[in-house]
């Protein structure tokens, strides 16, 4: 089923996408599926497990469901400090 989601890209992903976010329609059931569908945007060829995902400002597992109206944040590997 198609749902509308807002996606945000960070750092490397943002630079590759050329945009910091977009709202789109997707039938992806999970965060992982959505990440795979948007590979052309964020540009990462590596497994999602190396990156992180948050839905509605909560860090979630990659198998977390994506629901209509969700805001999904894709984080490349972090490097703080």
């Amino acid at each position, binding site marked *: 089923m198609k749902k509308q989601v807002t996606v945000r890209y960070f750092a490397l992903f943002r630079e590759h996408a050329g945009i910091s976010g977009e709202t789109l329609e997707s039938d992806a059931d999970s965060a992982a599926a959505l990440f795979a569908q948007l590979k052309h945007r964020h540009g990462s060829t590596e497994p999602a497990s190396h990156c992180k995902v*948050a839905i509605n400002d909560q860090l979630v597992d990659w198998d977390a469901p994506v629901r209509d109206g969700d805001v999904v944040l894709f984080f490349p590997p972090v490097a703080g400090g």
Partner: protein
Amino acid sequence: MMLMTEERILPDELSRELRDPAAGAYASFEGWIRNHNDGMSVVRLEYEAYAPLCRSEGERILEEARSRWKILHAHCVHRSGSLEIGDCAVWVGVSSAHRDEAFHACRYIIDQVKQRLPIWKKEHYANGDSGWVNCERCASHGPHYDHAQGLPPPDAKAGTPLHKRRTAD
């Protein structure tokens, strides 16, 4: 308390908030911007952070430290934006009755902060190139563990290392 800031970090003022008549020990850590990384001469760093999650995840880390060791107070402040060589990028402070707990908690917090907070840094090199810094945990898997292998460098000139192994600890 976990704070994100674009202002200069002032450890002296921050440490005052950890003072406690019952505290006999205070351990702190500061991450400073280094002028080199992996053989490259670094002139400046840019930190990108997603502040709302940095704060909530940071608070979670501090809470974990408090539950694991008998400490009195623990704070962390992380900067974002553009930083110069010598600037303080992150500060951690812990006070406790005895020093063993302060040292362990301080180390735990900075280790977790570096692995879990949604923060990314881009190094700008003396030769004009720039590159996103690879995460610590990946670096520990060796040079072949490269997250972004095959990813076309979006803003890099030829020869720029897209991911650096490690930076300021």
